[in-house]
């Protein structure tokens, strides 16, 4: 249904060609919020560990990481009584061990900050999320589109939200056998050529079967992976989809948040507005609190895509610009020595031997080109 909502962003398309319309970066005049507001990010997990992260809003021009709210007391209270306290992890995250929350029961979150201000959420029901039927993909001209399909046989869920984590395997430009350690060139013990990288969804993916006669979500488009702008599809790619059941209210919240932050383009789009969640100030009822508290269980499904399954695309390795350089063992008028280069950050690849079998130089390149750990981890994920 959300797609019926008129998104005139593509008006720009027409404008671009017909009349050469354009989009320029825009910096608004210095505006700033009078205060920083509490941001509550997280949910009550009906089947696992619940985690709540407390942060503060920042001015737009503020380049730093968001300030976290530590030393707060976070509690969950059941409608039928009972209260459990979250554990403060010290980094703004507060967790609650699995097993404390019951499905179809109502709970609310109660927060008291170190400064002594209290906040509370409305009561929310813990919903059970139906299983994901499948995650599928289809190769298109420009890359791979992933879809999720699910259904609820009891016709109870209707509103869904998804997040995903992507992981992909890749190789750096060169296989390094040598390592520079403690001012010595020694044999490398670990493999820094073969790595895995990962990313998390940043968009808001929500879908609903409200308009259908059955509670079915058929091939809802999730992530689209381009075959030209990254090496994700070069070797092997994996997508983990997490599905969360939503209530009509939380669905609306996410939809509004998405309308506000992702689909505002032309003046035919709805106007932005303050998205109001279900958290309120207790000390000061007029103080805005950002975020929406929901309760649900999490369903996951993982899928792999091998390069061999894809059309014969020329997927970039992202190391196209990498070239090795020969660094002599001893400094020459033209070049610094291998050791000097290693000191300044270059990574040795392998030795170059003289006809006599003596090491006379090392092939070297930049850290990015050699050590894949600059873009990922060389620890093979457990699911791989």
């Amino acid at each position, binding site marked *: 249904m959300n*797609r*019926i*909502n*008129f998104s*005139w962003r*593509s008006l720009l*398309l*027409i*404008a671009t*060609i017909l*009349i*050469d*319309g*354009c989009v*320029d*970066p*825009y*910096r*608004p*005049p210095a*505006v*700033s*919020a009078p205060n*920083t*507001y509490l*941001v509550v*990010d997280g949910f009550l997990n009906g089947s696992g560990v619940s985690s709540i992260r407390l*942060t503060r*809003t*920042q001015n*737009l021009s*503020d380049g730093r990481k*968001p300030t976290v709210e530590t030393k707060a007391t976070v509690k969950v209270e059941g409608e039928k009584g009972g209260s459990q306290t979250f554990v403060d992890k010290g980094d703004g995250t507060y967790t609650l061990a699995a097993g404390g929350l019951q499905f179809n029961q109502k709970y609310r979150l109660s927060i008291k900050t170190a400064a002594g201000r209290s906040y509370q959420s409305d009561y929310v029901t813990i919903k059970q999320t139906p299983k994901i039927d499948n995650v599928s993909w289809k190769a298109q*001209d420009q890359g791979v589109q992933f879809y999720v399909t699910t259904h609820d046989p009891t016709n109870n869920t209707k509103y869904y939200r998804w997040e995903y984590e992507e992981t992909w395997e890749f190789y750096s430009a060169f296989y390094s056998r040598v390592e520079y350690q403690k001012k010595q060139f020694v044999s490398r013990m670990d493999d820094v050529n073969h790595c895995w990288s990962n990313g*998390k969804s*940043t968009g808001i993916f929500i879908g609903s079967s409200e*308009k*259908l*006669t*059955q509670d079915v979500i*058929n*091939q809802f488009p999730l992530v689209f992976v381009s075959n030209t702008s990254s090496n994700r599809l070069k070797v092997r790619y994996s997508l983990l989809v997490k599905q969360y059941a939503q209530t009509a209210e939380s669905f*609306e919240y996410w939809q*509004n948040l998405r309308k*506000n*932050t992702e689909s*505002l*383009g*032309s*003046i*035919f789009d*709805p*106007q*932005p*507005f*303050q*998205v*109001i969640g279900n958290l309120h100030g207790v000390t000061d009822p007029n103080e*805005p609190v*950002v975020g929406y508290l929901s309760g649900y269980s999490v369903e996951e499904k993982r899928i792999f895509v091998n390069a061999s399954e894809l059309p014969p695309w020329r997927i970039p390795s992202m190391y196209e610009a990498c070239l090795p350089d020969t660094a002599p063992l001893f400094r020459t008028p033209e070049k610094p020595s291998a050791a000097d280069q290693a000191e300044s950050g270059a990574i040795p690849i392998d030795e170059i031997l003289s006809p006599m079998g003596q090491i006379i130089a090392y092939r070297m390149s930049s850290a990015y080109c050699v050590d894949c750990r600059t873009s990922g981890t060389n620890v093979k994920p457990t699911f791989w």
Partner: protein
Amino acid sequence: MTKFYRTLFLLCCFAGSLTAGFGQQAAEKTIRGPFTNLSFEQFVREVETQTDYRFFYNLRDVDSIRVNYEKSGQKLPAVLQEVLQGMSLYYAIDARRQVFITPERAIRTELPIGFFDRGNSTGEGDTNVVDYLAEKEKRRITLETRLFNIGRATNPVRPGNANLAGHIRNAASGEPVIGVAVYIEKPRIGVVTDQFGYYSITLPRGRHELRVRSIGMKDTKRQIMLYSDGKLEIEMEDDVIALKEVVIEAEKDVNVSGLQMGLERLDIRTLRQVPTAFGEADLLKVVLTLPGVKSVGESSVGLNVRGGSTDQNLILYNDATIYNPSHLFGFFSAFNPDMIKSVELYKSGIPSRYGGRLSSVLEVTTRDGNKKKLSGSGGIGVLTGRLTLEGPIVKEKSSFLIGARSTYSDWLLSSLKNPAFKNSRANFYDLNAHITHEFNEKNTIYLTGYYSQDEFRLNSDTVYNYNNMNATLKWKHIFNTKLYSVFTGTTSRYKYSVSSDQNPVNAYKLTFQIDQTTFKTDFNYYPTAKHTIDFGVSSNLYKLRPGQFQPLGGESLVRPDVVPTEQALESAFYVGDRFDISPRFSINFGLRYSLFNYLGPKDVYVYPNGSPKTEANILDTLSYGAGKNIKTYHGPEYRISARYAFTPDASIKVSFNRMRQYLHMLSNTTAMAPTDIWKLSDPNILPQVGDQFSVGLYKNFKNNTIETSVEGYYKTMDNVLDFRSGATLIMNHHPETEVVRAEGMAYGVEFLVKKITGRFNGWLSYTYSRTFLRVDQSVPQENINQGEYYPSNFDKPHDVTWVGNYRINRRFSVSLNFTYSTGRPITLPLAKYELAGSPRVYYSERNQYRIPDYYRADLSLNIEGNHKVKKLAHSSWTVAVYNLTGRRNAYSVYFTSLGGVVRGYKLSIFGQAIPTLTYNFKF
């Protein structure tokens, strides 16, 4: 020489015998009288039955004659002598007993002596070559100097007043001319022709010089001798722009002398000279240059008139309501410029005959079509082509006008390499037809049909489609010179659909439709010189299908969803009296009473009083049967205006009007979109009521060639709809839960300096205006911005517009436009935060900031083809540059978090100067 004298002598004798009558050639038959109060036609019939005389005359020459002749047994010449006395009519009788009645002078019934001797003649009348223009001029002068006798001649002229009525028509095409000032100097009495070119003026009996003036037409005058009520049809000629003379056209002082205020009238001439982005004359874009009219952004069709929202304008196309006046996302307006005769925009002092919208009435009138000869016109522009054809069906009686317009943007899109564009489609067309038929002098019918269609798909599988369909039938009946009526029946339909079939499971089609059927009767009555009365009744039946959501294709699992239809009847009666108390002071009292019935079948939700109307709060559902009256709203609408003239060229006018609106547009987008929904007032949505008080000062300079005015207004609006944050309006079964009742307030001052005639013409306007809304309800969460007034989306305080046109010579003219306005208000992000793994923004209260100011200059050059009278087609070229400075005016500003970063963007529709070339032709 002798021959010359002889001819002259004979001619003199001949003329002398003519004035004496040709009695000697007629047989001695006498006419039996008496004749009392017969029309000339009846008199002729009587004479023809009594004798074997045959009469030949032009009906138009004798239509004001009443024959009163007491004597009996007189011979025909004697009878005619007396009957025609003082009428400037003459008679001639030939040997075959044919009687010719002619104005000005009697015709010769014999060839003059020496007729066959032409080669040697040096007589005065012998001009073999008559210059075309001189001939026309001569005809005009004769008409202007000749004395027209109106009504039954009496001697002496009786004291008191009499009424004179008739049509003003274009001499070339026979089309009526609107807005022509018809007046006499002493005492100063004047009227303006209505939409049919009809005028009715009450004057003291006696001799007058009746002056007739209109912009773009040659001034003319008629010498009249007004005996009693009568008719006078007047033809005016197009003002051919003369190279040598600069005509100073005086007395075009309607703005000062007319009672109406807040009215802007544009004719097609003005429309054509304003440069547009795509080269085609665009009515709505020109309307937007008028003071008090704004829009939220470029290429947006929604008009905001004096702080009103876009749904508060009644847009009439030959009396039928147009719901979506745009094509191609608003880049084009829905009106084919070749069809249009004139546009009238009422911003205040709205006459009582109009109702149903709060802010303004935009009345678009088509031309009638050429009654004299077949002709056509057309144009080829960058994106569109158009063609119109017009001509007589029965010469001088009926005419047709048909027009078509379409775009070739589809072809343009498909020829592009980028797949995003290749997958896009955008096309539109519109068709117009108009037929006028004059059954007789008293009865004329007008039939108009209009159809427009738009379809587009923007790099997706979703196809949008919308169309307007209108028909109008008007019958104008003249009872007598003082009273005429117009019966009008119209139907308007607007519908749109959105469909998608890419995913077979979710394939759907969504449709919306509104139908309006209107019947109305309007009477215009001119009882005395001091009163002009109009009154009438109207009735509108609305039928809405607010939304039908249907599966598309066999595999679709889409659950059909139909928002129940709704219907209502809006009726009104009105009366208005323009009372000219003295030449300086006049008042118009108007009252309209409107009645709205919301009719079944319908299920209506009931909400508790004092709590927000939300889905969770629905108390009860009441079912009403078909045709059952669910809710009635009614109320008076006062329309009062007054004028006081300090001097002939300066006046002050005040007006107050109340408007009621029962039909609302639901839209939470800033601009008008084709998928906006219309909603009738129902038990949960109250009618909008608006009051406007305005006052204006008008002063003309330099023989009325320069008009200046200052108009101020203050306006309040009740029950205006604003929307809850994030409202979903499409397919909503209870839209009342998504809207909030707001009250609006607007005020402003408009300054205008205008020069309408001469080689250099145009206008400069400055407007200062504010418009605010307030949502203050009992439930605090419902309030927007804590219940305080906040600027509405189209609150743009400062606005300067310059429209100028300079005619270099007969073939070249240059137009330069300039417009500046304050940026519209927006809601800006105040802070950022992280949620669900991505930075997001926290927005300010509604409309607390503004986008950058807007300014734009446009230039166009019109090149006319040569001015030979006889050639296949007359053509002209328009070379224009839109957005001359290439300024990237912000259309909107938005913030997007993509890939984890919040970025601000400024969207401009026109990124650089846009040159266009248009070819127009006429044949």
